[in-house]
């Protein structure tokens, strides 16, 4: 049963992240996920200070708000003339540091372990279960991630055309009356939500990896956005399964192995993709040069 819960949790994280990752990669914002996963820390701490509970929903709320604040600040700096990468770096490191200070000031005697907030361990997922009317409903993380995935699928499914146009040509989107800023923040809100509900259970490295790597691999394998999302999810889940069994065999970090597996699949796509792959391009060039 442990295997099952870990694989299910990992697959849910992979699915949430790889759907959103496609839009981040296409908008050249891959590192936003990394930034959000760090800068939500003060949100978690403040939510804890205000509510006094470690209830996941409160934490999720606090973190999501901070996620949006992060995106807003990054945008603000960029519009005021700071380089894009620098403004991302400034905002997330500053917020993360503020979070660390808050933790050290307020929570010395309280059970809010940094490790446990930011670097959750997927192997422990099945211990933290949700009981409803005395019945064991399975791990909390699975419910939380399942809910997140549902929200993501619903929102992206309903507004697919808006997200697509905002990613491809925001100027036209604005010109035809689509509220570009709203959809930008909606996407960032979803990223914050996915980030937070994932890393509490599986750790930040898995989240960041799954946001970027499967989507980047899928980008190399297809020429249609819809298919790119499906392939991205498939790659994400495949790397979860592959990584888990590799971790069992090697007796190594599960999250680490999952991201390594994703990276391996990316390299395979990079070399062997029939359209954008290294081999295909080289072959095409050789054929072409011969025919000329």
């Amino acid at each position: 049963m442990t295997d099952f819960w870990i694989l299910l949790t990992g697959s849910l994280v992979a699915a949430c992240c790889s759907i959103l990752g496609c839009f981040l990669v296409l908008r050249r914002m891959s590192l936003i996920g990394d930034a959000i996963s760090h800068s939500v820390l003060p949100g978690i701490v403040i939510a804890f200070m205000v509510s006094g509970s470690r209830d996941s929903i409160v934490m999720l709320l606090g973190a999501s708000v901070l996620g949006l604040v992060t995106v807003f600040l990054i945008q603000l700096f960029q519009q005021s003339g700071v380089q894009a990468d620098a403004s991302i770096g400034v905002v997330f490191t500053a917020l993360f540091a503020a979070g660390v200070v808050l933790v050290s000031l307020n929570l010395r005697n309280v059970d809010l372990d940094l490790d446990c907030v930011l670097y959750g361990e997927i192997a422990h997922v099945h211990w933290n279960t949700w009981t409803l009317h005395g019945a064991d409903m399975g791990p909390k993380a699975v419910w939380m991630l399942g809910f997140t995935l549902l929200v993501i699928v619903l929102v992206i499914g309903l507004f697919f055309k808006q997200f697509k146009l905002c990613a491809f040509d925001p100027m036209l989107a604005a010109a035809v009356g689509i509220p570009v800023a709203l959809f930008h923040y909606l996407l960032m809100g979803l990223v914050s939500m996915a980030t937070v509900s994932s890393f509490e259970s599986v750790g930040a490295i898995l989240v960041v990896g799954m946001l970027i790597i499967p989507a980047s691999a899928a980008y190399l394998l297809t020429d249609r956005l819809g298919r790119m999302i499906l392939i991205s999810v498939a790659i994400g889940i495949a790397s979860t399964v592959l990584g888990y069994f590799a971790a069992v065999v090697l007796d190594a970090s599960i999250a680490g192995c999952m991201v390594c597996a994703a990276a391996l699949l990316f390299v395979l796509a990079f070399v062997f993709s029939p359209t954008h792959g290294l081999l295909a391009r080289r072959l095409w060039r050789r054929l072409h040069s011969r025919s000329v």
Partner: protein
Amino acid sequence: MPSSTKLTKQPPLAIRGLSVAYQKKPVLRDVSFEIGDGELVGVIGPNGAGKSTLIKAALGLIPKLTGEVAVYGKPCAEQRKLIGYVPQRESVDWDFPTNALDVVMMGRYGRLGWFRRPGAKEKAIALECLAKVGMADYANRQISQLSGGQQQRVFLARALAQDASLYVMDEPFAGVDAATEKAIINLLQELKREGKTVMVVHHDLATVKEYFDSVLLLNVEVQAYGKTEDAFTQENLQRTYGGRFAFLNRHAESADTAAAAEGRG
């Protein structure tokens, strides 16, 4: 006295006192002009004169400091469906995973509302628009595999799919091949025949007289505006382009003599 039809019909685009600045640096200063119904208007001026900014501010895509923009007498936010927009080709990522038909269908998104998905009707319209720019055979081609001119024609087809009354185009002729230039010209003429109004940012001075009814010479401020034969004069160009114009002029003349020499030889 204007006739009664003129009184009821609002101009497609009327701009009054428009100023725009990027970080305190003025890009447009007190720009006012009005485009008549069914006109083909060229906007010309040197690099950095604010031509693209004018278009974006007119469509409400960037904030303006002061000024009013009216599209058929109302703010442009209320008239989105009447405006077709062709952004600069370089403004988007042509490696985006999509094909030509799909890009053209995006022109219909504004009319679909919040939840409706593009369907068979949108596809039929998009195919028709692709055919109008001579790109019907490329409908399923991945957009990165199209040449620059073909990409520009896909953008034009997308604007056609918007089925607008006022078309605003940002440098559609930039870096295109002869076939595409011809296709664009035919398209502009056809839009004019249909009674549509078109405003085009243009950079090639040699073709202005041939293509446009009216011309707006812009360099931060409006330098001249009027019927092409009245406004497109040496003197106005000199004022718009400053010292650079002498060079441009000489360049054009030497190109003419070279062409003539070639013709003789």
